[in-house]
């Protein structure tokens, strides 16, 4: 069935499944099938921040004084984060909005993707500050083999879902010949692609991002690149919320009350889910090798980062009801937790050297005397 931006069919939204029911008509939140998504929206809005609020000017001096191999670690990590947020800033909208059926979930997806665009803009803020030639950093993302390899796996499930939705919404279920090519699509297959896509997004947010956060915070543990760490900390706070969102979606799908077919798909895809986690963990370990190829930094090296990959992979698998695949049970970098506590994120503006603190301040108190020397 074709997508419509305002479904004319009168429906009981509380009886719609999360996805592949009727398209949403009225965006109403007076009634909610899953109140959790409304709560996530409110929390995300309460987290709102802008990159310009964080002063990163001291990072420029820190960066210039870093040894070459640490510059490589820092810049490569930043490029990888830029790739991840480039994908996350647009893909949830393109992939999920055409098939979502609940207003609160639809708005959560939009709120979620919007906050990712703030992350993307903050990387430009950071790169502009540390480099006189920011274009070189961004241009290299499209040329860097190691990053492109990751991009392939990060985007594959999104692209398969989007491609399937396009075909389904234009032509419906069945086998279709388009421009001489034969394509087959069924609703069941689309649901399977959706489940695997949400799983792969969960891996992106719950593992890949956290491996990159570890590198960012490792600099700040040595009181280097602290402006960057302040921004990454705000990003990490948002990501914790996003992965809670995808964990909820996965768990609702697997429970089957929402759509019994999804529960069956979740069972059938279990092997593939394990494979997605395993492959992501392997890739992140490869990435650790690339980061530290020219040397380690104090507090973090290839082995420690690989142990962290195993630890975080295990913990994220357990969160969605899968069994851990690695023997690591201890967090090898317990100091990262201090950077992830949300309490520590908010600091008084005057303490944090926030450059925009006094910008846009308006005095609302107006007295008649203020016009004393005013002539027409």
């Amino acid at each position, binding site marked *: 069935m074709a997508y419509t931006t305002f479904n004319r069919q009168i429906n009981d939204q509380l009886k719609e499944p999360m996805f592949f029911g009727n398209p949403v008509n009225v965006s109403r939140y007076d009634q909610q099938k899953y109140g*959790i998504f409304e*709560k*996530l929206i409110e*929390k995300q809005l309460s987290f709102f921040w802008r990159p310009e609020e964080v002063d990163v000017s001291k990072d420029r001096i820190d960066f210039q004084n870093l040894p070459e191999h640490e510059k490589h670690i820092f810049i490569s990590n930043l490029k990888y984060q830029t790739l991840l947020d480039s994908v996350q800033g647009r893909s949830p909208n393109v992939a999920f909005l055409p098939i979502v059926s609940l207003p609160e979930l639809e708005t959560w997806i939009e709120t979620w993707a919007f906050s990712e665009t703030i992350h993307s803009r903050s990387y430009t803020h950071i790169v502009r500050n540390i480099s006189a030639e920011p274009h070189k950093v961004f241009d290299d993302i499209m040329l860097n083999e190691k990053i492109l390899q990751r991009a392939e796996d990060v985007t594959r499930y999104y692209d398969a879902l989007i491609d399937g939705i396009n075909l389904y919404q234009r032509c419906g279920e069945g086998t279709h010949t388009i421009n001489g090519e034969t394509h087959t699509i069924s609703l069941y297959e689309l649901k399977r692609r959706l489940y695997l896509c949400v799983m792969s997004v969960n891996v992106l947010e719950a593992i890949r991002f956290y491996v990159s956060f570890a590198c960012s915070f490792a600099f700040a543990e040595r009181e280097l690149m602290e402006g960057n760490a302040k921004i990454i900390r705000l990003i990490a*706070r948002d990501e*914790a*919320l996003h*992965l*809670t969102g995808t*964990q*909820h979606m996965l*768990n609702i799908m697997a429970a089957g009350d929402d759509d019994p077919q999804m529960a069956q798909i979740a069972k059938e895809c279990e092997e593939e889910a394990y494979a997605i986690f395993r492959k992501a963990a392997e890739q992140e370990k490869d990435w650790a090798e690339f980061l530290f190829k020219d040397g380690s930094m104090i507090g973090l090296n290839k082995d420690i980062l690989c142990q962290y990959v195993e630890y975080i992979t295990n*913990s994220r698998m*357990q*969160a969605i*009801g899968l069994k851990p695949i690695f023997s690591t*049970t*201890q*967090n090898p970098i317990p100091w990262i*937790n201090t950077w*992830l*506590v*949300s*309490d520590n994120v908010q600091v008084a503006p005057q303490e944090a050297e926030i450059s925009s603190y006094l910008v846009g301040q308006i005095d609302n108190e107006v007295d008649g005397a203020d016009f004393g020397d005013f002539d027409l």
Partner: protein
Amino acid sequence: MPSVRLNQHSAIEFDGTDANLLCALERHQQQVNFHCREGYCGACRCKLLSGEVRYLTEPLAFVRSGEFLPCCSIPLTDISIEVP
């Protein structure tokens, strides 16, 4: 004063000096994973084997039945928990 039994052996007392169960566990040198400490990330998820807890703030993280988040809860009765 509710007691908190950990992984089937040692028990600690929740005497009200700690704001929540996570703080109490940490004060007794128990290693519990955590991130946000506000109930929205779910990193501190533990198993609740017996007893009852009360949430100080309703968790946003997904919590399966039989699990709870120590970062935003206090024990109502004696409880027995499993820390992963």
